[in-house]
C-alpha cells in the first residue's frame, strides 16, 4: 500500500518547524519570512524552488522600509483561520498610508508578483483618481502630456458627453 507525503501546510506542527526564508532589501536590511507567506509572491516562489538554503534572496528593487511592510502583508495573508471580514478590515488599515507609500507598494507588488497586494493597492489608486480631470491626473502621476492642443481638443470632442 503506497502512501503519499503529507501536503505542506501553513500551520506548523511540533514535528515540522516552519521554514524561514531570508530576504535582503536594496539598502542591505535582512528580513525573515515564513515559507508559506513567501509563496504569496510568485517571484519568491520561483527563487525558492531553485535555491540554495540559507543565503538571503537579494531584492534590489525594494527598500527595507517597504519590504518590512510587504513581509507583514504576506504573513497576515498566510495566517490560517482569519475570516474574510477581519482580513478586509486589516487590508483597509494596511493601505491607510500616504500616497507615495501606496505607489511604492504597487511597484513592490508588481516586482514580487503578489496578486492580492497588487489588486488591493490598484483599487486604492483607482478610487483616488476616479473623479479627477485629465489635468489633475497628469499632476497626480507627473505625466507630461505630449498631445498638441488640437489633438487633445479632438479627443475631448469625441467623448464630450463623458465630461458633462
Amino acid at each position, binding site marked *: 500500500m503506497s502512501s503519499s507525503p503529507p501536503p505542506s501546510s501553513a500551520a506548523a506542527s511540533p514535528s515540522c518547524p516552519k521554514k524561514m526564508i531570508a530576504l535582503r532589501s536594496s539598502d542591505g536590511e535582512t528580513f525573515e519570512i515564513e515559507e508559506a507567506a513567501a509563496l504569496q509572491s510568485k517571484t519568491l516562489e520561483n527563487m525558492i524552488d531553485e535555491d540554495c538554503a540559507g543565503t538571503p534572496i537579494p531584492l534590489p528593487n525594494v527598500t527595507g522600509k517597504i519590504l518590512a511592510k510587504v513581509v507583514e502583508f504576506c504573513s497576515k495573508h498566510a495566517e490560517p483561520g482569519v475570516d474574510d471580514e477581519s482580513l478586509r478590515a486589516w487590508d483597509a488599515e494596511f493601505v491607510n498610508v500616504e500616497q507615495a507609500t501606496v*505607489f511604492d507598494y504597487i*511597484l513592490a507588488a*508588481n516586482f514580487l508578483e503578489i496578486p492580492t497586494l*497588487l489588486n488591493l493597492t*490598484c483599487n486604492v489608486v*483607482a478610487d483616488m483618481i476616479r473623479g479627477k480631470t*485629465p489635468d489633475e491626473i497628469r499632476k497626480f502621476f*507627473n505625466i507630461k502630456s505630449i498631445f498638441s492642443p488640437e489633438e487633445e481638443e479632438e479627443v475631448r470632442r469625441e467623448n*464630450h458627453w*463623458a465630461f458633462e
Partner: protein
Amino acid sequence: MKLQGYSANEIIAANEDLISEILLLLPARSLLRFKCVSKLWLSIISGPRFSRRHARLHAGSGASGVVLRRTPSDHQFLPLGGGGGGGGGDDPLSGFPFKCLDFAPDPAGLKILQSCGGLLLCCSFRKIGCRRNYYVFNPTTGQFAMLPQLGGASSCATTVYGVSLAFDPFKSSYYDVVCVRSTVESAYYYQIEIYSSRDRVWRLSGSPFVAPFDMVFDNGVFWNGGVHWISPTGASLCFDVEKEQFGTMPRLPISENRGCRRFRYFGESRGHLHFFEIYGSRTAQFKIFELEKDYSGWFVKYHVELDSIVTAFPEVVRDYMDPVYMNYYAIVMLHLVREGNNEESSLLVHLPGKILTYNVGDKTFRKLYEMSADQSKGYGSLQYGWVDAYEFIETLAPV
C-alpha cells in the same frame, strides 16, 4: 522611493501593464475622460485587448439610463438615479452620447432595434433603391460595425423576419447576431443564420424549422444565453445561441379570464426576464412575472399598484371617454429596470407629458422627466411605447 531618478508614480504611469491594472478598475465614463491624459493612456484605453478585458470585468453594471426614441432623429436620455455602477455615487450622469442616430452615413436613416449588454443593434429604414443594412453600435465608444449582407449563397430574395443581438459580457466580449429568415424551399419554413463578431461572417445554423402560426420574430429578447420570442396568442420559442438549438419555455402566465388585453410587456433587464399583461380599461394593479433561470416556470416577482399615481395625476383619467375603451387610462408602461438591489427596481411609467419612475419595492413614485410644452406639440399626449425605450449601459466592448 526613487529608481533611476524617477519617482514611483512616474514609473507606474509609464508602465503600460501597471496602468492597465489600475484603469481596468474604473468605470467606462471615467476612462473616456482619461483618454486625453496622454497618448499612452489613449492607446491603452482604445486598444481592443484592454476594452475586451474591461467589458468582461464590468459585465455586472446595470443601466445608467434609458434612451427614449421620440423620432428616429430625436432621442431623449433619462438618467437613472445613481447610475448602474457607472457613477459610483458622484455627479449625476446626465451626459449622453447621441441625440440623433447618425453614427453611420446611411442614406435611409437609422433606427435602434434592440439594446443588449450595452451594445445597440440598429438598422436602416426601408427605402426604395437602398439595401437594408444592419449595424452593431456601441454608443459609449462611438464605434460601430456594419454587418455583411445576409443570405450569401442564395441568390433568391430572402425575407428577414427578425434580427436579434446576443451579447453577454459575462461570457465573452464577442457577440452574435441571430437572424430568422425565409427559406427557398417553402413558405412554412424558417431558417436561422448566425453572425459572429469573431469570424465576421454569416453562416447557416441548423435545418429549416416550423414555428407556431402566429409567431413574430422581430422583438426577440436575449436572456440567459438564448433569444426568446413570443406570439400574440402566447406561444413562445427560445433558441440557445451557443448550442444552436431550440429549447422549450414554460407557458406564459396569461390570465385565464381573458377579457380585453390592454397591454403586454416582455423584456429583459440585468439578467432577469420579465413578462406582464394588463387587462381591463381601469386596472391599475397587476403582477410582474419573472422566468426562473432553469426554465421551470414563471413566478410573481412584483405586485404593482398604480392607484396612487392615478390619484396624484387626475389627467390620467380620460373621463371624456367611455370607460370601456382600452385607453381610458392614459398610462403606458415603458420599461422595467432591475437594480442590483431588487427592492430598488423601478418601472418607468409614461403619463401625458411626463415620465415617472415607480419603485416596485416600496411602491412610491417620483417624476423623472417632464416634457416641455413645445415637445408635446403635434404628437399628442402619449408619445412613447415600450418599443421606444432602450437601456443604456456603459461598456467599452469593441464591435
